[in-house]
């Protein structure tokens, strides 16, 4: 079946995995944005010469299915040694504007170094990182009330970037000049380039190991292997059609999302036809983000040990009509789509398969002025499982970023933390309890703007199999309730308090535990 024997297969898979991990280490440890270095909001991946993702390091699920779109966006270009590509346009390979992707083509070193034309393209190394600011009116570039993409920051259509040339330096300077803290942005881009160099080096080593002519065969074998593993998992799910419906809490009212999931043998169809059309706010998603959320949920439902490669996703079809919230047309505002709508898409798939819901939001809070931007996302309650309580105070789905330590935050920013605690009793009851949300209260020590994007403030996370729902989240400014998607100003001494939702319970609490 495979070009590799069972042993070589395992060794090549391991090498690719290690290479992507190493890229991640370089990126996270040398970056400057707290989003990347503390929160690890970044991803690294390797691709074959045909643009298929052969492996990804798994730092954060929201990037899972969205990296291939970035490489697809530059695949048709002509590539040269040392010339990388940079982009963030959600409708040309990106997700939302703060996620900047750098793609580096990898060439086998020519037998004679002067014969550049004979160099063989081995594949691509790609890294994506959430930069702390990419322009826009609001520091942190996560505006709560944007209506068009260009209000959300600098849009970078795919463009070449050769950091060793004067032109490349100009490209970088021109881009970072339009963002806040340009020095930090420059350093983060440098960290991304360094990560790609590390990945390129490992891919070249692997090519030498298996033979440059056989690299393609080897990576194909890894893709096929992932596909076989996924098929085996899907085959073990009962055939049938499942439905789920849920909503997003837009300013203008609830937006309905619908899913029809069809399990047929070794294949899975996720069809979102009938979901709301794209709206005039920023809950829209490019298709790549919707795909990411679906693939995350499938990974939860199948076997997370399957190598995350394009092969793993071949048996899964994601169908979304264009012009809907989950496959928006170019130009739509998308800031919240990547963080919030993606969470809801994961909820839909997991609900269809009978899971209790987690908090279903990342509780995005951005604070800043001309001197700083600070973005944080807050954990909440996880939905309970059939055999265990849901954990409390964690990121539940599309994010898994760390918090910023209070002792780091209070040194770096004009902020004081008043309280950081579990929100006890917020998880839904059940045979197994949903996890509790958290309470976080901050005081501004200087004048600053804030931008809050949150969900599950009106609709509770649902339980499953008779379990009760988790509590809604709420947000308060000096004790007064706030809208869940809002941009505003804080004066010194003002306090912002966020209480995140609990997770749904599983099973009827009155039934005895099994």
């Amino acid at each position, binding site marked *: *079946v*495979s070009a590799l*024997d*069972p042993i070589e*297969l*395992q*060794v090549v898979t*391991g*090498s690719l995995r*290690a290479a992507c*991990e*190493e890229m991640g*280490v*370089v990126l996270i440890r*040398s970056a*400057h944005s*707290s989003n990347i*270095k*503390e929160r690890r909001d970044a991803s690294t991946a390797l691709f074959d010469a045909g643009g298929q993702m052969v492996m990804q390091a*798994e730092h954060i699920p929201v990037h899972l299915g969205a990296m291939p779109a970035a490489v697809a966006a530059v695949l048709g270009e002509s590539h040269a040694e040392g010339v990388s590509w940079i982009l963030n346009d959600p409708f040309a390979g990106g997700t939302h504007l703060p996620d900047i992707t750098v793609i580096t083509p990898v060439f086998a070193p020519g037998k004679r170094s002067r014969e550049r034309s004979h160099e063989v393209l081995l594949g691509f190394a790609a890294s994506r990182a959430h930069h702390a600011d990419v322009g826009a009116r609001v520091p942190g570039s996560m505006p709560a009330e944007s209506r068009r993409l260009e209000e959300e920051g600098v849009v970078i259509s795919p463009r070449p970037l050769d950091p060793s040339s004067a032109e490349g330096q100009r490209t970088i300077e021109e881009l970072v000049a339009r963002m806040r803290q340009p*020095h930090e942005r420059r*350093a983060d881009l440098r*960290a991304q380039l*360094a990560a790609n*160099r*590390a990945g390129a080096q490992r891919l070249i080593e692997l090519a030498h190991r298996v033979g440059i002519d056989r690299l393609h065969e080897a990576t194909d074998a890894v893709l096929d*292997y*992932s596909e*076989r*593993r996924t098929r*085996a998992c899907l085959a073990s799910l009962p055939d049938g059609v499942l439905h789920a419906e849920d909503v997003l809490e837009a300013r203008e009212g609830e937006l309905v999302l619908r899913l029809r999931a069809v399990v047929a043998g070794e294949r899975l169809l996720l069809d979102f036809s009938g979901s709301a059309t794209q709206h005039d706010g920023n809950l829209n998603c490019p298709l790549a983000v919707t795909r990411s959320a679906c693939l*995350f949920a499938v*990974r*939860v439902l199948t076997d997370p040990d*399957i190598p995350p490669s394009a092969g793993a996703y071949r048996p899964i079809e994601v169908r979304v009509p264009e012009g809907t919230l989950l496959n928006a047309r170019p130009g739509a505002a998308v800031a919240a789509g990547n963080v919030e709508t993606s969470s809801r898409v994961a909820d839909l798939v997991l609900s269809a398969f009978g*899971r209790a819901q987690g908090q279903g939001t990342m509780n995005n809070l951005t604070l800043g002025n001309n001197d700083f931007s600070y973005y944080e996302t807050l954990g909440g309650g996880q939905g309970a*499982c059939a*055999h265990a*309580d*849901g*954990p*409390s*105070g*964690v*990121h*539940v789905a599309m994010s898994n*970023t*760390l*918090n910023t*330590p*209070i*002792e780091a935050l*209070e*040194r770096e920013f004009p902020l*004081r*933390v*008043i309280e*950081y*605690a*579990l929100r006890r009793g917020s998880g839904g009851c059940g045979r197994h309890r949903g996890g509790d949300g958290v309470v976080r209260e901050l005081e501004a020590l200087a004048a600053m703007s804030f931008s809050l994007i949150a969900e599950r403030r009106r609709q509770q996370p649902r339980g499953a199999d008779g379990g009760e729902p988790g509590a809604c989240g709420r947000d308060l400014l000096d004790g007064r309730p706030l809208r869940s998607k809002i941009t505003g100003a804080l004066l010194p001494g003002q306090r912002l308090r966020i209480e995140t939702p609990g997770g749904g319970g599983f099973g009827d609490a009155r039934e005895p535990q099994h």
Partner: protein
Amino acid sequence: MLLGVDVGGTFTDVVLLADDATVHTAKVPSTPSEESLAVLEAVRAVLALAGARAQDIERFAHGMTVATNALLEGRTARTALLATAGFTDVIELARQNRPHLYELCRAAPTPLVPAELRFAVPERMAPDGPLKALEPTAARELVAALAASEPEAVAVALLHSYADPAHEQLLARLLAELVPAVHVSLSYELVGTFREFERTATTVLDAALSPLLSSYLGRLSQDARELGLCEPQIMQSSGGLTDPAHAGAHAALTVLSGPAGGVGGALALAALAQETDVLCFDMGGTSCDVCVIEGSQVPETAERTIAGRPLALPALDIHTVGAGGGSIAWRDAGGALRVGPASAGADPGPACYGRGGEQATVTDANLLLGRLLEDSPLAGGLELDREAAERAIACLGRELGLGPIDCALGIVHVAEAEMLGALRVMSVERGVDPRGFALMPFGGAGPLHAAALARELGVSRILCPRASGVLCALGLAAAAPRRDAARTVMLDADALSPERLSRERDKLIDEASAALSSAPWRIRVRHELRYAGQSFELAVEEELAPAAHDPGGRDLGALDPDALCAEFARAHELRYGYRDDRAAVELVNLRVSVWGASPALRPRVQGGQHPDTDVRPIVFDRGEALPASILRGELAPGTRVCGPALCALPEATLLVAPGWSGEVDEFATIRLMSA
């Protein structure tokens, strides 16, 4: 005479270094329910072997797993926590990430302090000092309430206490007054660096394990005294020894002491072999520990974890993967051959142990390939059952469509890929190029895989010590006493004056030196720096001549901040591929370590003779069986070893692949070079 006793999961190893530098070794089965039983039995055994008396022992160094096992098994003290009001859940909130991306209900380790034993202290420090003072009356009332909950141990961890410990100190005085019998751990004293969750969790771990460790060490000291033995010195996670009182008061310092002894042994033997750069791997039954010696030093870190809990204390930077002799091979749903992480352990053990194990393991594969000798019993008097190994491997081979020999080769290859990954994490991922390094395998199974790993890493020299099967115990015998002190100082470029630097540094040197019972022989200062805005630090080290440190005279010579920053930029470029000379550098933490004298280790070979040699077939990488010389017993210095060959050492087996050759040096280390 120096004595080292290392307690492992299966065996307790002992090494006695006699005054004439002769090395005596023994192995007895461990006694997990009361580790000291096996410790004393091992001591008696080696004394008998060496014909020595307990009174002849000058130093008794001990590595143990008491605290580690108690943690893994949940046998911790009833522990209370005093934390800043509004932040008592920090211990439970951790860093808010879930432990597994896709197993959504996998729980993080349960906090060692339940919610009802977390007490809110009405105080608040800011980075620059008190924001809300702790009133003595309120503090007294709180400590009284805590006393009523009858804890066995108390952890005190207040926000920003690394910057101003006054409130933790006040609570410590009240605890000493109101609950004098209860163990107390203070975060500023134990950890001293910023990041509240890691500092709190480390302090809580320390409190929760100290009562148990302290009573174990009390019993062991008592037993040692009755035997006429001196007081045991305890191995810390940092690789240095400390006295039982200090170890018992701070269990967190020894919780990763297990592999630290082995690193010490590797360092000592590498130094004797005059190798400064060595990759080391210690392969036992269930796992493989990897570390790197660079410039005759093993890197340290304060970011290790144990059983999913952070440990913000100095520990040798050791990376562990689940590839050991007992790791089980299996076929996954995609048809790939996998090895581990499940292990057959010691019981039933690999199929060839003949204790009912039916699954193929790495040890079974090595036996089938002729790389382990069935008639050369493993340590502990174990006979190997080749037929059982063959049955298990043939069975897996049928599932994979491979013959037994190809399957066995595959198992070894996949296990080696796992170890290779660990070696890469510790070298290339940290900016270290392994070519030019030597490779030192140890543990019972390590030397079997050295040649294959060396080839993959581009390494051309292998050092295999005679005592590689008991290297941890040897390292203990050769270890030095050590104390540490650390503080977050957070000095930006403007505050980085030579005077300020020396002042902060000297304070820590005095603190660490005072705790060391003898005069320091070595002082090391680690400056943890970063570019302003980064969140990870890189260390720039400075070694001070102890003579230069005169506690009365003060002046150690002013440090040059510019040199420090230049050194940091160099390190940053090496590690991450770029430097940024326009960025400001800040000094985040200072860590001072002081060492007492360490004994000189020059093991002498006893009764080394030219070995009996016979020739047997061994299957090497390409699948063909080659006739290989089999060398058994003690190898005398000067003995030539030429691959293909197999050296059956007393506690380990070294496989010498074709193309490798060398000889035994004067310290009984087998030194191989590739052609």
